[in-house]
């Protein structure tokens, strides 16, 4: 199957840029319900869709899908364009295309959907951080970002937190069938029976050693190292009233 990008390129070749007069003419015909005029205006502006989609394309977003979603923005612009206002079609359409592209990215970039206003604020925060670092050589604090953007420090904090990128342990890498979890070493004792056996043996010996302590010795060690039992459980580990008061104060 030919890629959508290639199909779009073919359409662009066959449809040169329109003049303002042609645009107004086509828009007026669309208003009267001319579907051919609608098709012509759409196809003549595909290069704008490609240009904007390329600008917003990132490695983790499928370009063909982004192109299709951006085209939906173009369709909306064609249907709502009013030539009487006197603007060029591209001036009006680019906002609809950008909106469609950004919405698609927002909805598909992460498994957890973050509201678009939060994404927009996050990109503003990133710009502020970059600018601040370039100017002063240090990273700004949340309060400084909040002052610059006129938001609260709390909002800045949770916006940054909500927009952190996540990766799934089960997601397979594009160039191999391995997922992230396949690359993490199993450090548990169960993956190494010999080590497990040695660990159990050591634990047994240490427990035996602990049982050599008299109750007085064990109690002194516990007091010294702050290993307290439940202060209400006086039957298993009797403590004095003073000790109980001391622990409560701490």
């Amino acid at each position, binding site marked *: 199957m030919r890629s959508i990008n290639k199909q779009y390129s073919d359409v662009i070749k066959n449809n040169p840029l329109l003049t303002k007069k042609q645009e107004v003419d086509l828009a007026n015909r669309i208003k009267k319900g001319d579907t051919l005029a609608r098709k012509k205006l759409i196809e003549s502006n595909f290069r704008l869709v490609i240009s904007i989609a390329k600008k917003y394309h990132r490695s983790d977003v499928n370009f063909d899908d982004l192109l299709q979603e951006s085209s939906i923005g173009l369709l909306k612009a064609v249907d709502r364009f009013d030539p009487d206002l006197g603007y060029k079609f591209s001036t009006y359409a680019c906002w609809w295309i950008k909106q469609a592209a950004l919405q698609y990215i927002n909805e598909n970039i992460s498994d957890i959907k973050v509201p678009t206003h939060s994404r927009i604020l996050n990109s503003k925060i990133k710009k502020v951080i970059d600018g601040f670092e370039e100017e002063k050589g240090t990273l700004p604090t949340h309060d400084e970002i909040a002052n610059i953007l006129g938001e609260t420090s709390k909002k800045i904090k949770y916006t940054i937190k909500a927009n952190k990128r996540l990766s799934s342990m089960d997601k397979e890498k594009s160039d191999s069938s391995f997922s992230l979890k396949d690359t993490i070493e199993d450090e548990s004792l169960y993956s190494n029976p010999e080590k497990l056996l040695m660990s159990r043996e050591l634990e047994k010996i240490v427990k035996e050693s602990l049982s050599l*302590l008299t109750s*007085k010795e064990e109690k*002194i060690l*516990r007091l010294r190292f702050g290993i307290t039992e439940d202060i209400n459980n006086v039957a298993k580990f009797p403590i004095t009233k003073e000790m109980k008061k001391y622990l409560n104060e701490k």
Partner: protein
Amino acid sequence: MKNKKYVTVNKSGLGLHAIAKIMSEEGIKMNHSTVRNIINRSFVKMASHMSKNYDLNHSDEEIFNIAKSPQFQESIVELLERKKDER
């Protein structure tokens, strides 16, 4: 591994004097030096038992050095914590 000089005691750990006072109140009269000696003796007892079990045949001096090392003491404290949780 970094050689530590002192064993870490958590916030509720008591000083030798405080322990001596508590024990004396409970009827086992002792002063802070006795408390210190009991702590040292306990660790020596455990280190000696472990050395025998592993056939390491450490001398008394070596066992004393192991017993007073912060790494050894910290491990024992951790196990005492676990013993508490297992009850």
